[in-house]
């Protein structure tokens, strides 16, 4: 046994020092904290459910946002430019211009669309199949110009390509509908900030939910705490089981939140697959990144410890004058 230490001139009991004594005290706190969770299973379960719900919300929002971001990146890549040619340009020069453009390094593909096809697409999109012929006959010859659908290479700066295309002979106008994508990006950025703020709020919420649960646990075990203090337990020893309990609440709450999000994604994957299939896209929901999962679980564990620390210290001051 280690030689007795002295504390403020008071000799400690044998067993008070040494790594093994330290380990034994920690083992005692560890087991004692698990006991606290199982002693009142319904109350513990309710706290855990509240924590899981509170943590699921920001996590789910984050996952949703990440998925929207992924989709929008796909859209940007798929985006094409519509090059409207002058009205008087006929099929032959239009196709010649088209094949000339395919030689540009910045351009991946060119798809010429005849006025007839354009009209058919238009009426088709408007579900006006039966009126297409009527419309075609009612309108003057060639109501629409030839259009070249240009797909740029992935790395190309779209604006410079647009200005180059506009300088070409026979090009009337180039339509790029990127504005809404820019707005979407901006919106995603704003939502991202918002979710960050929400995550901070919920983390504070988690700390206080756990603090409140620990506070009730302390009240239930007031007698035990006082007796422990009476027979010479150090504040650290009394505090430790509660800190562990806070840690468990945080870790389990975080894990439950992660599982909820994971099961939510599995449940949504079917409908989302159908939806993306209807757009001829192959989009799959992305699960949260591993860093996010670690952040979620470790973070809520940390805030659990923090919350219980606040309450236990406040209570301990009253016992030791």
């Amino acid at each position, binding site marked *: 046994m280690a030689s007795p230490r002295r504390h*403020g001139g*008071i000799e400690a009991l044998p067993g008070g020092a040494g790594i093994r004594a330290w380990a034994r005290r920690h083992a005692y706190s560890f087991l004692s904290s698990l006991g606290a969770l199982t002693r009142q299973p319904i109350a513990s379960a309710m706290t855990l459910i509240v924590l899981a719900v509170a943590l699921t919300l920001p996590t789910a929002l984050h996952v949703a946002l990440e998925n929207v971001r992924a989709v929008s990146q796909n859209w940007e890549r798929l985006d094409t430019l519509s090059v409207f040619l002058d009205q008087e340009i006929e099929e032959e020069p239009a196709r010649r211009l088209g094949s000339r453009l395919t030689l540009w390094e910045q351009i991946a593909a060119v798809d010429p669309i005849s006025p007839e096809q354009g009209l058919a697409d238009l009426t088709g999109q408007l579900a006006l199949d039966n009126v297409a012929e009527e419309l075609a006959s009612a309108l003057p010859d060639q109501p629409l110009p030839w259009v070249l659908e240009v797909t740029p290479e992935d790395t190309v700066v779209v604006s410079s390509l647009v200005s180059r295309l506009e300088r070409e002979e026979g090009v009337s106008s180039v339509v790029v509908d990127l504005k809404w994508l820019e707005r979407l990006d901006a919106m995603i950025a704003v939502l991202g900030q918002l979710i960050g703020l929400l995550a901070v709020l919920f983390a504070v919420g988690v700390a206080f939910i756990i603090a409140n649960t620990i506070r009730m646990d302390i009240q239930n075990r007031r007698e035990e705490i*006082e007796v422990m203090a009476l027979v*010479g337990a150090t504040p650290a020893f009394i505090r430790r089981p509660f800190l562990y309990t806070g840690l468990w609440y945080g870790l389990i709450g975080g894990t439950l939140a992660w599982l909820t999000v994971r099961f939510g994604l599995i449940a949504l994957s079917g409908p989302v697959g159908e939806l993306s299939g209807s757009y001829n896209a192959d989009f799959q929901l992305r699960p949260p990144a591993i860093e996010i999962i670690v952040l979620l679980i470790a973070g809520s564990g940390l805030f659990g410890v923090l919350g219980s620390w606040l309450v236990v210290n406040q209570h301990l001051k009253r016992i030791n004058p």
Partner: protein
Amino acid sequence: MIRFEHVAKRYPGGIQALSDVNFELANGELAFLTGHSGAGKSTLLRLIALLERPSRGQVLFDGRNVGKLARRHIPYLRRRVGIIFQDHRLLSDKKVFDNVALPLMIAGVSYREIKRRVRAALDKVGLLDKEGMYPPMLSGGQQQRVGIARAIIGKPPLLLADEPTGNLDPEMSAELMNYFLQLNELGVTILIASHDLDLIRRLGRRVLVLKDGSMVDDLPSRQVLAGDGHG
């Protein structure tokens, strides 16, 4: 071992529990502390175990002023003092064994050592067969003895008892006092707060008398033996 020098304790709200108390308790001595309820007996014991700090004066434990002890050293002082309460202060959701083992658990003693010493302590108070029971299953006297086992398991040099016989019948009380006398024989300093005057008189030990927070009498053991009853 214990010395009070002009000790006063005033609680918030202006209640004067003790005023100018002076006495000394030598190493290995056994003394009774008596007086009406509200005379300040419990407060005096609480000052020794540093459950309270004195408002004025000094409480010396082994020559050290405990009133000035830093908060972080308090637990180590309490490990040197065994305390027995009238209401036992046992943990009702823990077995007798675990109740008695608590001071050793806190000190980080190995489980084998704990087991050995708890058995020995329970054997000493005659409750070895009750180690697996919960305190509410025991009688008042048995619970009190569990409390004593817990107080002595850490082998503290000083034992404080606050009305240990308060809830016990006379026969049980006498038996309990015998335990204290035996412990005292082994060299433990003991201070017992009690108003069981018959019992105190019979034992003929030193008696400190408190009245309204003041030490009004200090009767050495012989004087009590001579039959100079006090109350």
